[in-house]
């Protein structure tokens, strides 16, 4: 039950930070909002085909304190991986499980002591709602068939990155993050199993992003 409300609780905590936003918030030359797109290379990249195994992420952030910002984040992806059975090919042809979907959430970034948001090194905590579809091969009965379904779960994500600004306008961002679903792994259902697998794929997810300062 707690899991269901964790998103709400964290959202409240983060919002309270936002409500406290005050005093000296210089942002970058007075600009506090920016949007950026991040190109993510998840750990699954090494397990699946490398040509299209990427995640995409769009962030809208607003600097609320001297060393902190809050934001909305949207992920979308279509990932491929070696099937859960561990079998990589059938009749010499490579096969992959796939999962496609996305996530919506809020994030909170703390900048290091030597930095002023939104420039410098930051630590990120985000709460996301993940949703999507999956496909997997199952050889459990000796004959192959496809298992598929939907999932809809909450996840926590932790990250670290470095953000810089060029030409007073362009935001550049590099970093890495990992995530997990609170409450542990699969509870036995396929949906949770796959959702957990997706969240786990955030581990060593590395990203490079560009964006623009808005206002």
């Amino acid at each position, binding site marked *: 039950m707690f899991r269901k409300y964790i998103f709400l609780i964290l959202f409240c905590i983060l919002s309270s930070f936002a409500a406290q936003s*005050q*005093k*000296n918030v*210089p942002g*970058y*030359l*007075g600009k506090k909002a920016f949007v950026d797109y991040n190109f993510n290379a998840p750990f699954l990249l090494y397990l699946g085909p490398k040509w299209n195994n990427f995640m995409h992420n769009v962030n809208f952030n607003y600097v609320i304190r*001297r060393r902190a910002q809050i934001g909305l984040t949207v992920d979308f992806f279509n990932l491929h991986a070696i099937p859960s059975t561990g079998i990589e090919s059938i009749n010499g042809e490579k096969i992959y499980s796939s999962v496609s979907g996305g996530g919506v959430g809020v994030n909170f970034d703390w900048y290091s002591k*030597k930095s*002023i948001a939104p*420039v*410098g090194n930051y630590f990120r905590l985000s709460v996301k709602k993940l949703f999507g579809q999956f496909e997997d091969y199952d050889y459990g009965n000796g004959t192959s068939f496809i298992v598929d379904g939907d999932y809809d779960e909450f996840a926590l994500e932790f990250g670290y*990155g*470095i953000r*810089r*600004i*060029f030409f*007073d306008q362009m935001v550049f961002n*590099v*970093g*890495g993050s990992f995530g997990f679903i609170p409450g542990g792994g699969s509870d036995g259902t396929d949906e949770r199993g796959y959702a957990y697998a997706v969240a786990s794929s955030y581990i060593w997810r*590395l990203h490079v992003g560009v964006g623009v300062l808005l206002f």
Partner: protein
Amino acid sequence: MKIYLTLAILFFAQLLFCQYEPFDSKGDIPKDFTTYSYQKYKKELENVDRKSKRRSRKNQKEFFLESNFGIDDLLQSGYVMFNDPVSEYVTEIANVLLENEPELKGKLRFYTVRSSSVNAFATNQGVVIVNMGLIAQLKNEAQLAFILAHEISHFKEQHALKFYLESKEIDRQNSRNILRRKKFENTLTKNQFSKEQESEADELGLELFLKSKYNLDAVKGAFDVLQYAYLPLADVTFNKSYFEDEYLVFKEDYHLNTINPISTEVDEDDEESTHPSLPKRRIAADNIIRKNSNEGRVDYVISESRFKELKKRARYELLEYQLRDYAFYESLYNAYSLQKEFPEDLHLKKIIAKSLYGFTKMRNARQFSDYRLKHKKTEGEIGRVVYFINELEKFEMNALALRYAYSLKEEFKDDVVFQDMIKDLCQDMVNKHSKKLKKFKTGKAPNSANSPLPEKPDEDASDEEVKKYEELLKKQKEEGYNRYTFHGLGDFLEQDHFNAMVDDCKDIKEKKREWEESDDNNTIKNGEFALGENKVLLINPFYVKLNRNFQKQLLIKTEKAQMKFNESIQKNADRLDLKLTVIDPNNFTKKDVEEFNDFKEIQEWFGHQMNMEDDFKMIAFNQERINALTKKYNVDTFVWTGVMTGKKGKNSFDVIGKLIFNQFSWLYTMITPKGESIIFSLALDSETGRARMGSFDYVPYIDHKDIIKQRTYDILSQVKKKRKR
């Protein structure tokens, strides 16, 4: 007619009561001050001897770089004056000397520096700088002419360049033969070369001097001035009775009976000096002079009255420099000796009051040891001043300063800064010597105040006699203050105004605490500030780029970065709608002479404030002029900011570590050079000198544009931001 007569009397009366007229730069700022050092350097590169060896060419370039930037640092410090009466006079004398050398004349520029030391020097670029201390000590125009001739010869022979090249060569040989030659010998070799240059400058200077009509005796006189350069302006008898009256009387043993005489001996050993010894220089000069006739030669070619007027002004000016440098013994004694000449001059009294104030503040804050002189190491009458000041107890010093300043209260009733100084002395007396202050009595000091000390028993005196003597001495010490200093404020303690001031000072601690807790305190949480200013004066923003591992300043890069930094600050101020008046010596145009003079005042004032500590606050000695500038620029906060940045050397362990543990940080390290930057800012209240904002941000990167821009924006936004009530 009567009106004119009255006006004339008033005018002369004013002259009589205040002889001080400060020097300032005038007219257009010369190119030496406004041209970028890099441009000067580029131009001077044309003078590199192309035929010389590669190493020599490299050294020559290095010299041009360092000397141009070095001299510009001095010129832009605000302490060097141009077109002022002294510089103009010095130029005229130089023109007399160079009458037959128009080409050389065209290459030289003469300026004066606000320094009390007795010196003059010439640069390789043709800038000759004369210290105000030299003008104050010289006896006549001819002596100044000889010194100028000497400096001109240094320039003519390009001594600075030659010395640099020779030093480099000596260093190079030394580094190759490190086992055979010691560092000390290396220095001696350089000194020897320097001495040869000095002798050559004396000789060539004399040749130039002999072509003029100046008196040859001046050469000897000039050497005398150099010999006694360490002495005060005059040697006038000092007695503690100067500070005494019927209320304040000091113990007899505060007076030093025997002083060290002024030494006439000169150390002939010049092995470790860069200059030949004075006897050697005198002999060499005598040998040349002897062959020439002194007939028809004069002490003054330009003007005797002008020299005397400038000398008088220089001596007054010197007092200001000595206060600025916290040389209070000298300022006190020099003002005292000038009083013999101008007894009614109020300005001299003010200098003495300020000197006593300086002593008091330093001693009360235990900051005196660095500036303390020892009377045994002095020569002449100044020894008595040193002894007297050192003998005074702290509270006596405070009482004396308070008495002296308070007695001038009416004379300076419109001088806000002087009145503040009195209050400050009173506060110190109340807060730091409260127990002693309670013992101060009304009424005059007893007549017996100066009863002689008990006679010291002979060596063969009995124990009883020695004991008796010691008891007497102890008794006298115990009663001493009662009989002496405790009547020092006797007359003032009967005045309501003085007592009200003392009562007011008693509350100051409480008031200070209240103020710190009040909304006027600009500090907000986490060391962030909100000054709520719409207009400030930004002084001398600096940007220093250092080489790898921060060993040396990258001069050319620094200058270029400095220009961009100034633009960035101005843009950020515009973004914030903050009115920013920038006084930046690097960006003066020829018409900015007023700003140039103002810069010197503010620079000096900032220097003073930077020396202050929590427990040691002293009103700046040029606060009066700063108050005028506050009104002129309509600001009440002065801001100083700057960046210091440098690259770090490669650290392979660091790179490998990051490669293993943090892939993206490693990537970042590869694409962004490592370094460190410090962004500094200080905002001071222009009336009180109180720090309203101060930050010293360390950033573990080199000076990325976005970071520097963001930081300067942050500083200015804190200046602009109003505190939420």
